[in-house]
């Protein structure tokens, strides 16, 4: 597990960067969603991955037994997922609105805010 997850994160980031290099804004956005999930997995892995060892504290004890995963990163990931969900919903609507208004998804053609210099 400990080896498998980082490799998966690497693969996700590679795929995400590939997608984000595209001129199509929608592909860029998919890349962004992928890379954000890779970041979430990184945090998840940072807490340690221990199968079949729930981080439960026995009654009367002050700390969980040795060898369990840290549960805090999982709470952090949940927060990050929720925030990320909101942001991507907004970004998706923005790109759609941009497509309606500008008539293109090609970032090279989005030059309204920064018009090309007259030659």
């Amino acid at each position: 597990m400990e080896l498998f997850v980082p490799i998966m994160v690497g693969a996700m980031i590679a795929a995400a960067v590939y997608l984000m290099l595209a001129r199509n804004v929608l592909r860029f956005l998919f890349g962004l969603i992928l890379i954000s999930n890779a970041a979430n997995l990184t945090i998840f892995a940072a807490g340690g991955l221990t199968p079949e060892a729930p981080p439960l504290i026995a009654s009367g004890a002050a700390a969980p037994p040795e060898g369990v995963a840290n549960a805090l990163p999982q709470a952090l990931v949940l927060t990050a997922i929720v925030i990320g969900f909101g942001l991507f919903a907004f970004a998706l609507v923005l790109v759609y609105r941009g497509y309606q208004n500008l008539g293109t998804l090609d970032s090279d053609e989005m030059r309204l805010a920064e018009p090309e210099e007259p030659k």
Partner: protein
Amino acid sequence: MSLALLLPLPLVLPFVIAVFAFLFRRGPEGRWISVVGSALSLIAGIALLIHVLANGPVATQMGDWAAPFGITLVADTLSAVMVVITGITGLAVAVYAVSDITPAQEELGFHALFQTLLAGVTGAFLTGDLFNLYVWFEVMLIASFGLLVLGGTKVQMDAGIKYVTLNLISTILFLSGIGLLYGTTGTLNMADLHYAVQDADPGLLTVIATMFLVGFGVKAAVFPLFFWLPAAYHTPSFAVSAVFAGLLTKVGVYAMMRMFTLVFTQDVAFTHTLLLWIAVATMVTGVLGAAAQTDFRRILSFHIVSQIGYMVLGLALAFQSAFALMGAIFYLVHHIIVKANLFLVAGVANRISGGNELSKIGGLYKGAPLLGFLFLIPAFSLAGFPPLSGFWAKYVLVKASLDLQLWWVAFFALAVGLMTIYSMTKIWGSAFWKPHPEGTVPALGDLPGDDRRALIVPIAGLAVLTIIIGLFPEEFIAVAARAAEELLDPSAYLTAVLGEVPTE
């Protein structure tokens, strides 16, 4: 007032105001709630600053969960000063928005988003927890997204897509950095991190520090990560771009200052030398970019980038000279006031002369000499003319680099100042000096009286503040010096957050 109330108050107020401003968004009440509320937030910020100046850094634990387990709110001198300056900018822009924001934009929730933005900025300054900082960044981001595209013109959509996507990447880098830092040290409380990183592998920490540097670098718009800024800041309403220009990038600079003095000090020779190169490259590219522009607000946008370089410069030299860090903090405060003010002036120029493209406007000096005067104060201050605030800010940084015998850094800092004058005179020469291409003479009197007052009062107020800082810099320098001392020797900060920690 008890500490448990004093610290969260500047944070809670904007959220409460946001709710009421949203409820009353359909009428004129909403904007006045926003103005009065901003004044209250400013007062709460000043109360906090007075308390911090009298008693040193203070901290409170949310929900009484002891640090490092709970979320800590902490204010040292730097945080408290930033909260006050956020309050000042917020109040100025809220007054300006009374005239600048149309009822249609108000009905879409401008004031609610604006107050949420201020809450996010204040939260980022006050939090003592890294993950909480991420959350405040997100609060700030989502509010800024909304403000940027409010109104939904084509240009705003175009700018919005670039702004949103590039800022999301920086957020993700920041988040991954947090994950790796937690995996390495097992804590996210910034004060606790200060101790925890001392046992961590320095090589790994430097990698994480670089991730933070890129993440915060995008927010702060440093070279080569600044492209989203000049693509976006000239598109929304003027009130929005003024608050963006004043506050948003500075949150990135603040976060850098905090992390690279409190936590990432393991390899100063690498990280802070990198910062030095970034700083100089940022100054130079920003000012050259501005020289190529012909739009009032786009020139100013590029100057934000260039000025950020000065602040990063002060941070880069922090461990060689406390004087430089003090200069960076002084610069931060001065720049927020001056930059927000210049964007407000651009708004009035747009209102009365019908545009922001320099070739299409003119005659402002003839028709509106008061506006010309109010433009010259922040413009000269930005360029660093004595006796305005920018002179002292630049003077301290240049002197610090000369003291360290970094001649080339001092040379670039001075040359960029000179180029800044070039851009400011370009605006002056086209917008104010030459006659209007259509032969009209734009005057402030063309505006209805109420609008005129709402637009000019905040500009004049900020200009007066610039002059006060310029004429009586001792007090401000003393506060900045104290903030720099606290950053370089964080023992009071650490004690405030963690209580007495046994020294080894």
